């Protein structure tokens, strides 16, 4: 039987070099020229420092900032480290898992405690963990839910905060793709600028 070792080895090595080295190198080179900002993580820089990426959420837990989606990512030690950009992931809790209901109840309690005057039903994205643990967005409803708390903590008129939210709200892309979003990091950075 002809074992075809030479064609096997050459085909494998040749195609490996083409698809595993030449192709990624070509795409990296082209990206660097055409889309340098996007290729390197859409970073938000200020005076040479990286504040974050506009695509990756960060953890906010104080009253004066908008909170993002709950994140269940863990650190290298296995302990909770929300919005860990080096270890993405979600809870994988089933809808029937009592632990999920308990987690949601705790998140509701935290939101209520941060703003006892806000008693309306809470938008679901604000009390459920995102898939990536790095979701940069909340829904416009989830932002509106927090306007009262943030305005109060900052001694700003609600209208001004609501206006900022509106500026950072984006509809579905091209009007149809995906859902409406508010970018939490960019909104909070804008809040910190506002006086």
């Amino acid at each position, binding site marked *: 039987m002809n*074992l*075809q070792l*030479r*064609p*096997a080895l050459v*085909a*494998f090595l*040749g*195609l490996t070099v*083409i*698809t*595993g*080295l030449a*192709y990624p190198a070509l*795409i*990296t080179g*082209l*990206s660097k020229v055409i*889309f340098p900002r*996007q*290729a390197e*993580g859409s*970073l938000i820089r200020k005076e040479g420092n*990286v504040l*974050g*990426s506009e695509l990756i959420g*960060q953890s906010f837990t104080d009253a004066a900032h908008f909170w993002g989606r709950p994140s269940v990512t863990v650190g290298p030690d296995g302990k909770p480290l929300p919005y*860990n950009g080096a*270890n*993405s*992931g*979600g*809870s*994988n809790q*089933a*809808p*029937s*898992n009592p632990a*999920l*209901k308990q987690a949601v*109840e705790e998140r*509701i309690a935290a939101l209520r405690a941060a703003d006892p005057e806000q*008693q*309306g039903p809470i938008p*679901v*994205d604000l009390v*459920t963990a*995102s*898939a*990536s643990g790095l*979701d940069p*967005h909340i*829904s416009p*409803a989830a932002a509106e839910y927090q306007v009262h708390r943030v305005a109060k903590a900052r001694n700003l008129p609600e209208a001004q905060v609501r206006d900022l939210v509106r500026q950072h709200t984006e509809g*579905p892309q091209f009007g*149809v*793709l*995906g*859902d*409406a979003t508010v970018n939490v990091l960019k909104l909070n950075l804008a809040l910190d600028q506002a006086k």
Partner: protein
Amino acid sequence: MTHAWIQSFIFLGLVLAIAVPLGPFIAKVLAGERTFLHPVLGPVERGLYRLMGIRGDEDMGWKAYAWAIAAFNLLGIAAVFLLQKAQGALPLNPEGMGKVATDLSFNTAVSFTTNTNWQAYGGESTLSYLTQMLGLTVQNFLSAATGIVVVVALIRGLMRRSALGIGNAWADLVRTTLYVLLPLSAIIALLLVSQGTLQTFAASVKTTSGQVLAMGPAASQVAIKMLGTNGGGFFNANSAHPFENPTGLSNLIHMVAIFSIPAALCLAFGTMAKDRRQGWAVMAAMAVIFVAALSVTTWAEAKGNPGLKGLPVNQMVSTEQGGGNMEGKEVRFGAANASLFATITTSASCGAVIAWHDSFTPLGGLVPLWLMQLGEVVFGGVGSGLYGMLLFALVGVFIGGLMVGRTPEYLGKKIEAFEMKMASIAILLPSAAILIGTAVAVLHAPAVASISNPGPHGFTQVLYAFSSATQNNGSAFGGLSVNTPFYNYGLALCMLVGRFGVILPVLAIAGSLARKKYTPESVGTLPTHTPLFVGVLVGVVLLIGALTYLPALALGPLAEHLTLR
């Protein structure tokens, strides 16, 4: 709901718009004809043949063809395994990733070579950039090429008359990779980068707030991961990670890329069969099942999680919020896109995810699970979907033949005992691996300890793992802790059975059919391009799928649904 359906129609329209020209193009490439890409890539192709010492038009019998595929894939397994073991001493490793454990390395090597892309590891915390590129990206290409050439060999078997060969495996692999996969991947990768998908060799970035952002050459891998229905994420969160899939548009590109080649191959089949209606009939059967499956998932996920009833949580779908069952989903996609994506990724053997299927509602999760169990023949994996569906077509004409008492024929070839034996093996082996694997796991205490959700859902986690691995999907009910020797070796075995336990019988059928004479159509022939045959095909797929898996599904998602209402 309207919003969900508009997005689904845009998706299906784009798939069709791409498949119509791509199908005949693939047929042309694999017939060895000149295309507009030959001035650039032709010299590369000829150079490879010279080094390999082969001629592109040398025909192989099915056994030589099968051995070539096996040898090529064995080399792939060895290379990915060794790269993981040696990555600590190799370049392009800015995060200093060390060598990977043996059971995990083996699992990942088999996983990417069999087009499964099951991942018992997190990319950004385990693998160096070099391993991702030189190991995984390469297998994303080569396993996709393997699937495509096998179905093309099968179609040749159907079309050739009294022939000994079914084509040249080496030429098929080289041509598929160079002319089909590579150019399309390059386009997709650049489109993704324009949306914000990463493509850099730089090390991770630390922000002023102390957040560490993992980086890497993601777009080049993500492009072929979707196009080749591979599905292995560069990052742990797969296509839910904003650095893989940042926007609504990038998500649409992801989804269209998954179905492009599987849909195009149906039309390539029609082109090669010199009867386009044959290709459209197969595609119609796929589309019927797809739309039905999509409706169920979309409906189930939009309703939200019944387990949160009684809490002050608003799960309504509105313009102000995506709503629905949002645990394990991303706001920019919403529950509607998550349902669409989940249906696509499990219809095809892709397995990429933008939401965690483990957190889907019981019925929303049942659909992806059952789509995999059907054999991923609804568009399916590149190549594997169509050869799977053609096996069901053989079973269909066989049953039709029994009804009218005539020897069954397909495209003028008599379907006889040998073909039916091989088709039965190819359909039954994966089913056996899924059900026996699940049964063994739930009787094995350490495997049960990996379950993370209580009740019937815990059983579904195990059933999903064996279904996904065996059918070479790669998506997971991710709560199950699968990085254990039992699952790493057990699931790797299932992946091999599900891949080569089907490829070898398919090539045997190809060889047997090629040798047969052409039988002209007669009044007793069941036409295979009519709505009636589409109905027969859908019926066969659903019937075999239901008979095989309903008992297991009743213990898992159906039981969970009844307890949660």
